[in-house]
């Protein structure tokens, strides 16, 4: 049994019912790193948000199941669901500059979950935070714990967020484009750090990215998304050896050596896009009756 199992998940906008995810299924076993790849707007980060229960208000779940450690989260009442997800999963957010509360010191922002939700003693939680900050290679962690976010660099803050994500020893971490907002020089360090932490702690990782190069380095398996549909799912080895979907093949061909800052994966040939659009339209037709 997979640790995370998403079955036929369908998301749509609340007001005009425009679909965002169409019948998406994926499995992540314990300790596995699974990449979610696609262009912006493909719905890849919506999957992570749905798992963590932080979908925007404008989005609703139209169907499907999300099994986390043997329980379908969507059948739980909101409070129980929050508690379960809070204990089992964590998020490494995209933008470290906005993901730390500017009016609170770093220390409590790492330990609050341990104390408030998981019932640790404050001293234990602080000791744990100090360990983790050391593990993410922050000098003088005791001082950093007392500082405010604005006193730290973007790279430092992302390290803190990574430490914070691992604080409660979650079984699953969703990393939502964790390096996109950083300098190219820092990106590599952070990537290596996440991979190292993941390996040491044996955490399953759902890695959302638009960068196939990153996937090839960090992930074991991946799903390729286009317009809210999964086009291809396979192991990283098979995928890079021989992608089955023409869109994937085009993506691979188009992957530049260095990702450009916009993160665009184009150019994918027009003909393939047209075919995809037709497929999606046919799918929508079939499911709206």
């Amino acid at each position, binding site marked *: 049994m997979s640790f995370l199992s998403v079955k036929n998940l369908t998301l749509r906008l609340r007001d005009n019912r425009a679909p965002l995810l169409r019948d998406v299924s994926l499995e992540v076993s314990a300790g596995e790193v699974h990449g979610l790849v696609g262009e912006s707007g493909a719905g890849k980060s919506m999957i992570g948000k749905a798992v963590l229960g932080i979908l925007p208000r404008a989005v609703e779940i139209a169907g499907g199941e999300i099994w986390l450690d043997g329980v379908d989260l969507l059948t739980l009442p909101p409070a129980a669901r929050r508690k379960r997800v809070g204990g089992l999963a964590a998020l490494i957010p995209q933008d470290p500059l*906005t993901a730390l509360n500017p*009016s609170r010191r770093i220390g409590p922002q790492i330990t609050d979950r341990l104390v408030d939700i998981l019932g640790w003693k404050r001293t234990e939680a602080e000791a744990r935070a100090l360990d983790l900050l050391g593990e993410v290679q922050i000098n003088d962690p005791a001082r950093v714990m007392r500082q405010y976010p604005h006193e730290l660099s973007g790279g430092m803050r992302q390290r803190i967020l990574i430490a914070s994500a691992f604080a409660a020893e979650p079984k699953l971490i969703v990393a939502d484009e964790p390096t996109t907002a950083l300098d190219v020089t820092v990106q590599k360090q952070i990537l290596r750090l996440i991979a190292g932490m993941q390996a040491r702690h044996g955490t399953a990782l759902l890695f959302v990215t638009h960068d196939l190069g990153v996937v090839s380095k960090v992930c074991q398996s991946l799903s390729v998304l286009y317009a809210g549909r999964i086009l291809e799912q396979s192991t990283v080895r098979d995928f890079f050896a021989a992608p089955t979907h023409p869109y994937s093949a085009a993506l691979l061909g188009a992957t530049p050596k260095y990702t450009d800052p916009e993160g665009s994966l184009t150019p994918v040939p027009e003909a393939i896009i047209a075919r995809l659009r037709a497929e999606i339209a046919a799918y929508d037709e079939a499911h709206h009756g």
Partner: protein
Amino acid sequence: MFWQKLIARIGTTAVTLIGVAVIVFVVIRVVPGNPVAMMLPPGATEADVARLTALYGLDKSIPAQFLIWVQGVLQGDFGTSITTRQPVLDLVLGRLPATLELSIMALVMAVIIGGIAALTGTRLRGTKAEGAIDVANGMALSVPDFLWGLALILLFGVLVPVFHISGRVTPSLDLPFTTGFYLFESLFRLRFDLWADIVSHMLMPALALAIPLAAIIGQLLKQSLKETMHLDYVTLSRTKGYGENHVITREALPNAILPTLTLVGVQFTFLIGGTVIVERLFSYEGLGNMAIDAVINRDLPLIQGIVILFAVIFTAVNLVVDLLYTVLNPRLRHG
């Protein structure tokens, strides 16, 4: 950095106060008619008028009068009231506590009502209740304290007479107070009977003053909560297992308060300015009521003293808010 800013602020404050003093001084000396003439009995001679005018220094040129007045002020002498013949400073300081208590009570009410409105509106966002709160806010915002005061007089003074709508305290009561701060002193002396009577007198005028400010606080705070609720650290806090109430009050609120605070400072001075007419409306014996009487009686030294005192209070409030903002904002504290 911080001290430099503080000194600069105090400098501009001083310039503002001098400007206020000059303007009041000039404006009230353009008053047609000799106020001294009104003080004397009908049979007084020209010479009597001249003597009294000289006594109050009103025969000198306006700049000369101003200099004399400033000299006095620097020694704590704000002149003598023409109508009551008591020192202006004593009169003004005697009424100040009443107005301060009223303003502070109104501020506290405004913060509580506005805060609750903003938090409830944020908690219930997207529902019909949020729309209702917005509409109520909009109405409260566009109607000034004067009209709210009248509406409250009708509602709770006449229709359902549960509160007092006139005066500061029931006149027949024996007051053991040594300070003018009745509300606080009655608490200190554990005289809860007096305290209840005072609160019952203050509640309606304070509410009239509080409603527009509450609406502004409600609107600003809700707006800034709404912006804050979309930020990543709030989302991140949700993934940790926290519920909506915790997310709003612990993560979003502290950051949403700052932008509200700066605007509330200016608005609080508007509230204090509003005490003038609201005190009149409720016959509340504060500075504002005295000011209107002083204007009607052409009591120049008294008017001058009251306006200057109001200006001092206004600039002090703005200064305090600025300092508070610096203290509360970690970015500036370490800047």
